[in-house]
């Protein structure tokens, strides 16, 4: 039985965390039994120069700022090389909206990587795609087709934040609207390019707005089936203009459990050790999550906001084993590569 918006508001208001957790855990168990997955990948942030300047971001720089940077193709290739050596099966290349880069910078980057390495390129958020298109003066469809032809495999779900324009206007007025984010995803799915979806909580949004976000994702998923996973982060207020407090682990867990129940058409729910730390990250595995995301050989964006947790394969394996589940390394498409 699918929950509607009102039912889920009632559910979250009337139930305690553990009741929701139990419901979510039952669904997870039914779908995945005792297999819990993770991936080995590397984040490569090709530039921190960004004209969006979102209030919640501690990563961006203006072009003339001292710590502004742009990686050359050689530097990127070297990073991919290191990632492959370290056992990564995926690279996640993302960066700021840098007005000096044309689409050919990305196409060349993708081609160079694919020429040398057998690695999945899960890269560029909807925000970047939209920006590439407008800077190039071509459609989203054309942009995605060209990137796909150059080697882009799938899109990560970042940049969704909360897909309610009222919230977005407050925190990132220059960033794409919820319609645009969803549209990029739809176009990608239409040409057979899969993606993930994210939500970031803790901007002062209401529970209704979080549910509206989930509703929009669920509706598009009904249409395209292109989302592989839903990933929930919490806003990291350190070093950002927006500031404020971190959401409580309580709030995070409750919303995560609801997402497993609400998003009945999305297969994988990912718990975030990157924003929650490994202890609460582990707890998500009892509240609906079946995947702990990536070991992340390199992570810059969350680190810039003052949150840094370290993870290794051994740590990840122990973390999962301690929950009574079987740890399994997966690829981007969620095929199991190795169990531990």
């Amino acid at each position, binding site marked *: 039985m699918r929950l509607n918006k009102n039912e889920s508001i009632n559910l979250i208001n009337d139930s305690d965390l*553990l009741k929701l*957790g139990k419901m979510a*855990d039952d669904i997870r168990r039914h779908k995945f039994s005792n297999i819990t997955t993770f991936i080995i990948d590397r984040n490569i942030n090709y530039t921190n120069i960004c004209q969006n300047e979102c209030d919640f971001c501690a990563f961006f720089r203006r072009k003339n700022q001292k710590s502004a940077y742009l990686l050359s193709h050689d530097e990127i290739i070297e990073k991919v090389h290191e990632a492959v050596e370290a056992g990564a099966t995926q690279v996640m290349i993302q960066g700021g909206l840098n007005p000096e880069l044309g689409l050919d910078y990305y196409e060349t980057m993708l081609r160079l990587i694919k020429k040398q390495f057998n690695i999945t390129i899960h890269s560029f958020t909807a925000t970047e795609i939209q920006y590439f298109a407008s800077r190039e003066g071509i459609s989203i469809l054309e942009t995605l087709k060209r990137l796909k032809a150059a080697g882009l495999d799938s899109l990560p779900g970042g940049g969704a934040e909360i897909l309610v324009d009222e919230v977005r206007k407050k925190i990132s007025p220059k960033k794409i609207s919820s319609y645009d984010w969803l549209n990029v995803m739809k176009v990608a799915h239409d040409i057979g390019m899969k993606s993930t979806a994210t939500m970031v909580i803790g901007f002062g949004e209401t529970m209704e707005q979080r549910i509206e976000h989930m509703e929009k994702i669920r509706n598009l998923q009904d249409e395209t089936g292109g989302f592989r996973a839903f990933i929930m982060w919490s806003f990291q207020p350190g070093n950002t203009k927006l500031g404020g407090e971190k959401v409580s682990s309580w709030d995070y867990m409750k919303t995560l459990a609801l997402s497993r129940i609400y998003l009945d058409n999305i297969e994988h729910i990912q718990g975030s050790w990157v924003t929650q730390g490994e*202890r609460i990250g582990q*707890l998500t595995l*009892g509240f609906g999550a079946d995947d702990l995301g990536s070991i992340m050989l390199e992570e810059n964006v969350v680190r810039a906001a003052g949150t840094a947790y370290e993870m290794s394969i051994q740590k990840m394996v*122990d973390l999962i084993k301690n929950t009574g589940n079987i740890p399994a390394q997966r690829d981007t498409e969620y095929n199991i590569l190795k169990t531990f």
Partner: protein
Amino acid sequence: MFGTFTEIERKIINDKRLSREDGIKLFSCNELSWLGALADYVRKKKCGDIVYYNVNCHVNLTNICTSLCKFCAFGREENAKGAYAMSVDEVIAVVEDAMNDPNMSGLHIVSGLHPSWTFEKYLEIISILHKKFPNLYIKGFTGVEITHFAKISGKPIKNVLFELKEAGLQAIAGGGAEILSDRVRNLLCPKKATATEWLEVAEVAHSIGIKTNASMLYGHIETLEERVDHLIKLRDLQDKTGGFQTFIPFPFLPKNTVLGKEVKQTSMWDDLRTMAISRLMLDNFKNIKAYWVMLTVPVAQVALNFGANDIDGTIHKETILHDAGATSPRSLKEDEIIKIIHDIGRVPAACDCNFNILRLIN
């Protein structure tokens, strides 16, 4: 397998006592939310929505210790680097500093077993603190320290406790219980109170009207069976005396300890299930504490929904566990504690060391 769990669930709903076997089975259960929900059900029925906390100050008189337990990063030998022993004036200075908080209500005093301090010295400190700060409650000394006092003074435990009570001590701390198993104690802390001695102090204290706390240090070399046996020993004594106020499960923090070379830190998963199982097994304890210093604040907040109804206090400045690499802050502000509790829809209550409510924060 789940059949046994249903049976345990039925026992809980019908207020039936869990057996040793039930306890061991619960430790094999990986359905954390089910376990938590059960513990939370019991907590709610027994304690309602109130969460107790203290506005308190920890005082550690000395870290010089003859016991030097393998799980401890605080104790050291007299001439070791970082060894200290406070004078009475230094103790007073610490408390005076803590008194800058207008809501400061009590002290928690636990220390190393100093090789040359006499029992009179400890008595004097309590007596002076009590006279100088009559409005502060004084909770202090673990069963291990009391046993040590009896040995160095040649006095029976009962007399030691009487004299401390006379001097102003109002409750005994819960530490030093570790795992109440001679096998474990012989391996980790052979030089201090045995399991029997620790339990004896609690029993004698209860018999003369001094309430005590109880604890369990887990996640080192003990077996899960030993954890369950530990809980049952406490439950049996509580049946007899009713003098335990709160139970504190302490996860072992390995950093800077001898044992830490061989043992990894517990996972949050283990911490939460141990919290829940403690609540379920200790059916005659009213309070279960989520000690935020060891658990970290986010996990302690979650633990309040896994059976706990007590989150310890502001602490002023924690030392013992920060020597062992605790990553939590050294103290919390009262506002922060209140927020942790309010965030989960519960009612914070500032209390003294005997769980008398001083202020209810609605």
